[in-house]
């Protein structure tokens, strides 16, 4: 079971046990992580599960898809290197311990 660490803007870490194949959005919503909303249920259409992936995990997570890339451009306030929609990050054993920073505007 991969662990996911969600870090809010105050630096508070919340650790969640996720199922393999589950998205980082779904794991967050299931565990009530503040700031990850997932309004559209993981359909890459709302942009309310924005996270910043810590640098050491970016290669493992890969680049955003086409539609996700558009939403990050249009809908999120502070797109940076490492910006992803959590619904498009399927969790794997390789990603165990992944650290995701949750942007302030979603909290």
């Amino acid at each position, binding site marked *: 079971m991969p662990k996911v660490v969600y870090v809010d803007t105050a630096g508070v870490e919340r650790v969640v046990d996720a199922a393999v194949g589950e998205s980082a959005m779904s794991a967050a919503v299931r565990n009530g992580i503040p700031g990850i909303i997932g*309004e*559209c249920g993981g*359909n*890459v*259409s*709302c*942009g*309310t599960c924005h996270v910043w992936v810590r640098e050491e995990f970016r290669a493992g997570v890969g680049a955003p898809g086409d*539609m996700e890339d*558009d*939403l990050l*451009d*249009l*809908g*999120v*306030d502070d797109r940076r290197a490492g910006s992803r929609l959590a619904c498009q990050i399927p969790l794997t054993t390789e990603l165990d311990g992944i650290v995701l920073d949750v942007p302030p505007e979603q909290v």
Partner: protein
Amino acid sequence: MLRTEINELLTQTGPGTRMGDLFRRYWMPALLAEELPDDDCAPVRVKILSERLVAFRDSQGRYGLVDEFCAHRGVSLWFGRNEDSGLRCAYHGWKYDYTGQCVEVPSEPETGNFAANVKLRSYPLVKVGDVLWTYLGDPEHQPPLPEWEFVRVPGEQTYTSKRWQECNWLQALEGGIDSSHVTFLHSGNLNTDPLFKGSKGNEYNKNDVKPFFEVAENEGGLLIGARRNAEEGHYYWRVTPWVMPNFTMVPPRGDHPVHGHFWVPIDDENCWVYTFDYHPVRALTTAEVDAMKAGLGVHNENIPGTYRPVANKDNDYLMDRDAQRRGEMYSGIKGIAIQDSSLQESMGPIVDRTKERLVATDAGIIKARQRLRKAALALAEQGTPPPGLAPEHQRIRSASIVLPADQSMLDGVRDAVVARPGVAQTTV
């Protein structure tokens, strides 16, 4: 959700705005040809992309589109006299030709050249099909004349109407891209409207109310496909093209004429909706044209002598709650065009997109916004010409087609979405 600054970028089209500069790269419908029916007929006020202009047709049949206001003291030239190959201001008789050149200032000595130094801002105005087109941009970037099939087929095969819509152009356009709403808002019309009823496609529409949407990029814009179940192992696809920046078409039904729209900004809080219907290979029948003129299909009924709909926001669009209750009309409002305009205007003049909640069926809208944004920025920052200018981008059609389940939309409609003279539309 859309960030505030992007909403502003996409919705503002006046002079000097980035989206305004993008629009000023294209030929846009400025009037219907019927608005200037004769030489020396009455001039018409035209507001487009927040510029106030006046259009006239001179004694020699030449079309002029010039600054609405006289260079002398700012009087509207709409009050002017259109005579002897020029538009003469009603105040002091200053006269302008179709290029905006002042040709006579009666108070000044004939020996002087005062008039020669006065010229109004002016734009080309060209009749192609039933539409008078203008180009508001820099002359050195003027593209070839429009190639849209609805203005290139013979006159008896095409019909265009227009109506004033009281909201920003983008929320009107987005209605044309979002084919998901058809299942609900327009559900009452498919069976009864003479311009839609009786196609096999309508059956597929009714039997599968949860279509899957696929959006594919093409050179001039997007192809938005709605996929529904058809016979075993097959899908029914309805494919809506959007061409940059403001052209959409509705997928055809049976052998009915094919229709679509141009969504032209008047200013940031109003737009003209040009609505066309044409058949690629046959004349429209009298019954079809009569139905279109009566406001059926995607057309509407206007207040006589104007292009304002009879059903408008001042009379709550003639809402009929009984018809809504009976289920004859999903929203209780008559006619597809007004069903759309009523709801789009209800969003406010410029909808605040920071508050919206998009779902998966809005993929076409997201993609279109992104294409517009990227094109506007590329033009502003690098001078890159936007998509949709090339004649081949404009030779496009909507399509409805049944494809084997294992065939991709793009592969299946590659030929069907190209306007081919003499070849009928691909339709079910």
